[in-house]
């Protein structure tokens, strides 16, 4: 393995920010999300020959990232690194345009179980279909629908019922 090929570099540029945003919602911390995103991209690069032939490499990257976020060991490591980065870095890379809503949404998501959280983020933020979400979460479409429904109930409890849910395909 020599230098990073342009193809992978392009993939990194294209998927880095969306991945951080997904992981920020999933983990609740942008710095931890940043570290996990880098690790997920590194793992993707380690298997790039296989991943580049997949129909949706982004789906694979998301799966790796969610699995990393679910790993307690990896998460603690990422939190440690994130603390170091925050101590040493002068400027901030993450901006919340609406801090109050951002904090409320992340708090509400944190009350959900990891699988409910993954289901609602993948469906309504990453715009994956029920089938794609099921494939990524390694479960059936019915389970995704159930998890999504419970997640929405949980979010309504936390955020109040005043939000609309719009999806391209039925849940």
């Amino acid at each position: 393995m020599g230098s990073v090929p342009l193809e992978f570099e392009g993939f990194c540029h294209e998927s880095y920010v969306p991945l951080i945003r997904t992981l920020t919602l999933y983990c609740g911390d942008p710095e931890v999300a940043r570290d996990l995103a880098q690790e997920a991209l590194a793992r993707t690069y380690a298997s790039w020959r296989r991943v580049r032939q997949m129909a949706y490499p982004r789906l694979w990257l998301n799966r790796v990232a969610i699995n990393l976020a679910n790993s307690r060991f990896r998460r603690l490591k990422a939190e440690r690194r994130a603390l170091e980065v925050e101590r040493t870095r002068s400027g901030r890379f993450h901006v919340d345009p609406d801090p109050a809503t951002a904090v409320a949404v992340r708090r509400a998501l944190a009350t959900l179980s990891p699988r409910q959280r993954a289901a609602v983020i993948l469906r309504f933020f990453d715009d994956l279909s029920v089938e794609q979400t099921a494939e990524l979460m390694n479960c059936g479409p019915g389970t995704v629908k159930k998890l999504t429904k419970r997640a929405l109930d949980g979010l309504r409890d936390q955020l109040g019922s005043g939000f609309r849910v719009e999806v391209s395909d039925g849940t």
Partner: protein
Amino acid sequence: MAPNLRELLEAGAGDPHDLPDIEAIWNRTRRIVWRRRVAATLVVAAVVVAAALSFRALPTLVDREPRPADDLNPRSADTLRQGQLEPGAYVADAFEHPFSFRTSTDSWSASVLEPTWVGLIRRANYLHVQVWDGVFDPKSRTARPADLEPLPTDLIGWLEDHPRLDATDPVPVQIGGVSGFRIDARVTEPLPTSPPECGGLPCVVLGRVAGEGELVDVEVGQIACFVVLDVPGGRILINYRAPVERFERFSTSAERLLATFEFEAS
């Protein structure tokens, strides 16, 4: 107007504005690749060590006595009971001519366990192992006790010549160490009046199970397979049937099961 969930999630995700650190990703990748190589080397080393140890232990393994579970010895099999059968070996010792068999899936169930009749069922299709004590007069238009005749010596020939059946030529078979003949048949001319045993469906009644009084019939639209085995002290009739469109599939499963049969007296 209430906000969209998507807008809320967008707010929660924030707005990161950095670029991926390709150098850092590359460094992490190197560590991952290195870890994978170490793991692969360790696995290869473990396999080599395990192979070496097994090779040293080989004479012991070869010389060891076969355990009861290694073969289909009826003594190591469970006694057949009614209900779903887990994969394993079973012995039908309540049957007049005890036999054992083995299932590799849980798709078979035992429905009847009598001295003259063992009924096994797989997805609503039956396989019967029976002892008959009589057959019904093929020329009769009914299936009343008065139409019952003694069991013919050549039961396969009797089935082959039955006027209401279209039967294949008998084929010699060996099941569970016992030789016999197999014939497949379907109804060409059902009885004018369907007896209650056929549940109102047009059928032909062929024989009666010894001691049970149960009548054995074949319905129109079914293919029935009959295997007659002569065992010391009696005659066993194995029969299974299924609707024409399902017969081939069921026959494959039934033959697979019959291939594991072992009659104790054989």
